[in-house]
């Protein structure tokens, strides 16, 4: 695998320690981290969506309750 240095723009393929050309990229940890973060993101989005749903239901219930409460208010002791 060809490695390019960002600083001096040199390319090298051999290991600086043993001179072997068998160098590989190791990004397993990064991928695992990405997957975990992605899953947690999906999970938190789902939880937010569920909370939003129950919030809307609560608001509908509250509106219905308030409407009923206002309509069933006792009337004044004179006409209105």
């Amino acid at each position, binding site marked *: 695998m060809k490695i390019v240095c960002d600083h001096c723009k040199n390319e090298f393929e051999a290991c600086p320690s043993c001179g072997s050309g068998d160098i590989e990229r190791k990004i397993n940890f*990064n991928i695992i981290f990405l997957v975990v973060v992605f899953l947690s993101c999906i999970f938190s989005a789902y939880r937010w969506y569920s909370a939003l749903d129950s919030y809307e239901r609560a608001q509908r219930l509250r509106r219905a309750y308030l409407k009923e409460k206002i309509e069933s208010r006792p009337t004044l002791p004179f006409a209105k």
Partner: protein
Amino acid sequence: MYQCQKCKKQVLTCPACKYRIKDPKATLINQVAGVLVFLTIIFVSLEIKVKEETEIAMKPFRQAQEETEKKEKVKEAGPPKQAKPDSNAAKKKSNNKKSGSAGKEGDFRAGTWGTLRSEILENEKAQKLEVRNDPYNLDYLTKIGNFEVVAHYMFAQNRLTGGCYILTGQNLDGLEEIRNNNKIKVGEACPSWVKLDFSYYQNYSSPILNSIAAADQFFYEMYISLASQMGPPESTALEELENSITRNEKIESVLAYDRILVYSWTTQRSKINFYFACLDSRPYFRLEYLSLKNAEKEDNR
């Protein structure tokens, strides 16, 4: 990160310049992960906020549920004796609805704005008064609590545009003393239309509205009744002074110095004005309902 498969050592620095080698692919993955972490934080904070609001919305229901549970527990502990339904109370309730002044749907008594004069004449059950013989007014004698009041309908183009309850009292004693003590003077001077009302309804002044205490009580009971139904008034005659002067000062000022106080509310269909005034030591109350269209004209009165 790069690693040699043979010696298992990580290649971290450039052999030529000894600077740290960056892996563009790993950097990209880390950046994407960073964005996802940021999104996760946003979703979590949104969820917390929404849950808080849901909690606020559900609070009265939870409280009611808790109360019900408590009641159930009390019932389980010892069954209470079942009270007999109060037949008198039920009768009173139904009588109130039939009285023609309370409980009926309407903008003023049984009439909605725009009702024809002839319909009011047909439907109004209270005692009709022959005070003014013109097509713009109709007067009836009715009751608010123990007080006999005049229910006055106002018409324009033969249709109902407003109405009011008018209550006038007897000459009050003790006002001279208040004047001599130089008590605070608040409110506007009593307008001329109050004098006109006194002349129209001089035979219908309430005999029990004959003391400062009775005027005070009637004013506050009416005010509290209105405020409890419609909230605090939208406008008051005293504005900022309203909360800084005492109840007694307000009453004494109106009664002793012939002033007028006005409190106003607006509902979806009506403007409601409550006037408390005094003229020549006689208290005057007027609870006025005006259609919103007519309210502006009446305001310019």
